[in-house]
């Protein structure tokens, strides 16, 4: 667990990058620092591994003040991933990944073997091991960066806008990779981004920071969407919060009806369309096991008659969901997240979540947002992650 206690960073020219920040980063979960430029998110991150030291306040790593730890020693136990990857151009990929093990004194064979394991873990062809960074694409370099950060198996991973420099398609796949890795490894991750959608997608807990370094709200993504603490957070979240919130509700909860006669099927039980005069009419599908309520809503909009088709993993029809069935769920979840939804994925439970009012005070109020349940429900959260 990482604790910020009244951390402030003020520069000689008077600018305040971080203002009295106090929060807890729970162990084994992803905490995202998000906000506009100048909100101090990167500065706060870099104070954890002492790349920057605070002007006042302190940061505790599992109860120990980081200020008391020799920086290089501290850093060898923390993984660090940055935007341009920062790979050493003069070393082969395998040696790049093995950097911290080498620093820790591992013998070359063991370090390289570990590096190869990690390359596989991040989804890179072992053939890349003998190449140089300049021979890899941006996305590939980023994967190497992540592998390198994980090499010495540090419990903490700091990531500073790691996916911002790659194109959206690559970014989405890297984000999915990270979620997959995290479900296996359960590291304590602090992730910085300026992209609120990335924050909502990746974070178990999200800390929204305001320009000037104040904490505006600390909450799970679902709570953030339904109960933004103030106008700033509301504005920063952007539009369609209600619809985006639906991504956090599993489609499993939808009451399915048996497929009606006018749904045309093929021999395998896969849908061909709705019966109509001009031939099979368009239909929309969703998989209740893996999809979210948002996908189901989308499916109803794609269907000619407003009824979504529920299919299994092989595309075979399991039933249908009418708008009425969806409406039932909407009513149940309207306005908030009391009862229902994915345990842990919101990073909060009714009892623990700091009330929006406290978070709104612009003086860096302490958000509680401990994802205690989030950590416990890890396995479920990892699997049941609904797609946005």
């Amino acid at each position, binding site marked *: 667990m990482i604790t910020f206690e009244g951390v402030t960073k003020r520069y000689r020219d008077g600018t305040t990058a971080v203002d009295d920040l106090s929060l807890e980063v729970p162990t084994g979960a992803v905490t995202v620092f998000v906000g506009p430029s100048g909100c101090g998110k990167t500065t706060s991150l870099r104070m954890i*591994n002492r*790349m920057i030291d605070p002007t006042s306040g302190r940061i505790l790593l599992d109860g120990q003040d980081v200020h008391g730890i020799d*920086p*290089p*020693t*501290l*850093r*060898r136990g*923390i993984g*660090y991933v*940055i*935007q*341009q*990857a*920062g*790979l*050493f*151009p*003069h*070393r082969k990929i395998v040696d790049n990944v093995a*950097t*911290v093990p080498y*620093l820790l004194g591992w013998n070359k064979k063991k370090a390289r073997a570990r590096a190869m394991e990690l390359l596989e873990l991040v989804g890179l062809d072992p053939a890349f091991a003998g190449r*140089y*960074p*300049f021979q890899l694409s941006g996305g590939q370099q980023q994967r190497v960066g992540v592998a*390198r950060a994980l090499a010495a198996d540090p419990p903490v991973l*700091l990531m500073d806008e790691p996916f911002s420099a790659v194109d959206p398609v690559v970014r989405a796949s890297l984000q999915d990779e990270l979620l997959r890795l995290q479900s296996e490894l359960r590291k304590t991750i602090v992730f910085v981004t300026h992209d609120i959608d990335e924050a909502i997608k990746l974070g178990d807990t999200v800390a929204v920071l305001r320009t000037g370094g104040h904490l505006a709200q600390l909450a799970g993504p679902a709570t953030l969407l339904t109960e933004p603490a103030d106008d700033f957070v509301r504005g920063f979240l952007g539009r369609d919060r209600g619809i985006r919130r639906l991504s956090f509700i599993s489609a499993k909860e939808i009451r399915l009806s048996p497929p009606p006669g006018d749904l045309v099927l093929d021999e395998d039980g896969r849908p061909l369309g709705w019966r109509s005069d001009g031939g099979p009419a368009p239909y929309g599908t969703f998989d209740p096991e893996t999809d979210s309520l948002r996908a189901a809503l989308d499916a109803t909009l794609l269907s000619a008659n407003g009824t979504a088709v529920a299919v299994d993993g092989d595309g075979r029809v399991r039933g249908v969901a009418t708008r009425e069935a969806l409406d039932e769920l909407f009513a149940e979840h309207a306005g908030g997240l009391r009862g229902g939804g994915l345990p842990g994925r919101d990073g909060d439970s009714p009892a623990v979540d700091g009330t929006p009012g406290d978070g709104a005070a612009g003086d860096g109020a302490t958000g509680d947002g401990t994802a205690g349940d989030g950590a416990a429900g890890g396995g479920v959260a990892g699997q049941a992650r609904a797609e946005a």
Partner: protein
Amino acid sequence: MNGEPLVRWDWIARNWANGGPSAISTLLTGHIVMAFLPVLLGLLVALPLGLACVRWRRLYQPTAALMNVTYSLPSLVLFSIFLSVTGLTQATVIIPLTFFALAVLIPAVVDGLDSVPDHVRQSAVAMGFRPARRLLRVELPVAVPVVLAGLRVATVSSISLVSVGALIGQGGLGNLFIDGWQRQFYTPIVVGIALIVLLAVAADGLLVLAQRLLTPWFRARRSA
């Protein structure tokens, strides 16, 4: 001019290694020593000085200005000045040439270290490298291409400038020019020029080879 051929091959053969101080081979070895020693010394001094200039930026401005001034002075001028200190010896050529080498190599070391991308340096710090190891294992290796480029310039210039020392009797192969001039005889002059250029090409080539071997990861950026 008076029917003299440009090159008299028999003269070359006779004077290649006749055991005297003006044998071509002797002049060649002397030339090599007077050209490479300054570069070597220059490198040994430029490395710590360059590092200091990077570490304490305020040093660099005056240092660079001094280097600039030094480099703009004709070699003959410096040879003349050092004459009073070291007389008509090889040292009078070697010392000024060392300054010329420094004038190229200190900026090369500084530029080389500056060429290390910031995200690479930050990564190294964040992974827990201590400053000394970081310098040795990360920053200097990445700086090598730029430093080597400077080394090439310094080496080739040095090889050429040694010949001016002939005016004070210490010009290595340059002495052949004086000889040719005094006797109105082309051959030594042509031989001198040819050997100097060959030496420069060979040295440059070796350095390029060294760069390929030392930095297989480096891809030179071509101007647009």
